[in-house]
């Protein structure tokens, strides 16, 4: 029961002769809010796609919610929720229709789906009417609905790939309250972001560069390690720039 939420060991993903993920290892504890940072193209989404059972790794191993990939990722798929970087809602369907569609993909029976919908909307505190077209929802609410859609099947581990991209401050604050609430409810949350103020809110953050994991620690410890001089008060963005640029040029 107390297996970690995510365990990755020596994970490698190659596309032809290009190595997108290069011997990455890390562990995410249950109930942890784990941040996944890195420059564009560092390999964050590729790693997540493997952990969601959508892409087979070239080598290495991974366990999610205690399960491995020996069945091709089938069992894992039922334990993970995935909010993709590319938008996954249908703008011409209503909020309710989008949730029903997500439930259908997961083959939930309609009664259970209705119950889950009620529970989730309550948990999220979603206020717009379910009859509103997704197109007409303000962005912050779209993100909340996308999260609900990703959680219809009550997954144990949730992968959020840039969930707040383009969302304004108030919406981001609300979304992060939700992330904490999920973790509080025992879900394991792995979240990618390019907003350093959000990274600051993670228990631990992993930093990827060109396919490799180059740092992993709490935001405070990362700052101390990157800028050991007493009195230095670096921002996480300073740390990001230093670590990503450092070895590169």
């Amino acid at each position, binding site marked *: 029961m107390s297996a970690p939420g995510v365990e990755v060991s020596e994970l490698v993903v190659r596309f032809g002769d290009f190595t997108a993920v290069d011997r990455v290892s890390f562990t995410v504890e249950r109930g942890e809010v784990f941040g996944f940072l890195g420059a*564009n193209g560092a390999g964050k989404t590729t790693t997540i796609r493997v952990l969601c059972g959508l892409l087979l790794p070239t080598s290495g191993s991974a366990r999610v919610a205690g399960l491995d990939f020996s069945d091709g990722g089938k069992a894992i798929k039922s334990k993970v929720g995935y909010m993709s970087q590319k938008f996954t809602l249908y703008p011409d369907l209503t909020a309710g229709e989008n949730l029903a569609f997500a439930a259908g993909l997961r083959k939930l029976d309609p009664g259970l789906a209705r119950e889950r919908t009620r529970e989730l909307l309550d948990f999220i505190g979603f206020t717009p009417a379910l009859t509103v077209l997704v197109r007409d929802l*303000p*962005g912050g609410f779209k993100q909340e609905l996308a999260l609900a859609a990703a959680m219809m099947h009550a997954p144990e581990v949730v992968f959020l790939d840039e969930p707040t991209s*383009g969302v304004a401050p108030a919406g981001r*604050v609300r979304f992060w309250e939700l992330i904490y609430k999920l973790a509080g409810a025992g879900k394991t949350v792995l979240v990618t972001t390019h907003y*350093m103020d959000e990274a600051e809110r993670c228990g631990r953050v992993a930093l990827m560069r060109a396919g490799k994991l180059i740092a992993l620690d709490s935001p405070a410890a990362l700052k101390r390690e990157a800028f050991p001089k007493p009195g230095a008060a670096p921002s996480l963005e300073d740390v990001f720039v230093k670590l990503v640029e450092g070895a590169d040029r």
Partner: protein
Amino acid sequence: MSVGVETSGLRKRLKANEALSGVTLSFEPGVLNGVIGPDGAGKTTLLRVLIGLLAPTEGTVAYSVDGRPAGFDAIRPGMAYMPQQPSLYPDLSVREHLEFFADLYRLPAAVYRERSEELLRVTRLERFQDRRAGRLSGGMYKKLGLMCALLQSPSLMLLDEPTNGVDPISRREFWELLGRVTARKVTVIISTAYMEEADRCARVHLLEAGKVLASGAPAELKRERGIKGFAELFLRLGGAA
């Protein structure tokens, strides 16, 4: 030549919602003009009206060149626009995109070379020139869209949330690049939901629920309102997503 844009009482009704509810704004020629606001504030609708893609329900847009009134047709050839989700060709490589757009804009070879090299360096896509657009990461794809827009020599450039999904290092470099673009007297109108990016603009226009909250130089606006950053302002207004 420097292009100015002024709107007066713009309203735009989209289905049930009013996306713009009386927007009167003046975009200053030859500088970075920011349109800042939460999602759903009407930023995209405003930009689409400015480029003539949407007709306003009410109100007008007036353009000028070097201070003299000019018609939309006179401005149009010098206008560049990057939508929030750039549409690129999944099967064309990064370099093929650059070549395609350079042809389209009829860039002289020397200008093409210089500009594409600068753009590839800033976006850090030099090593990925042969990768097809469909295989780029989210942020790399966004950067390619930006490169295609920045390749030309427009006099008016409209960019709709160009930095969403772009990593912190590239965002910084992108703003520096935009600074070099405005040094060529290009008028840039750029929307963003990154509030701290407002400080990079010469003038900002704060938009909320289809209305203009305030316009001015960022430092002055902050002083007037007694705030350190614009995020504070929008958080204080609360409510909206």
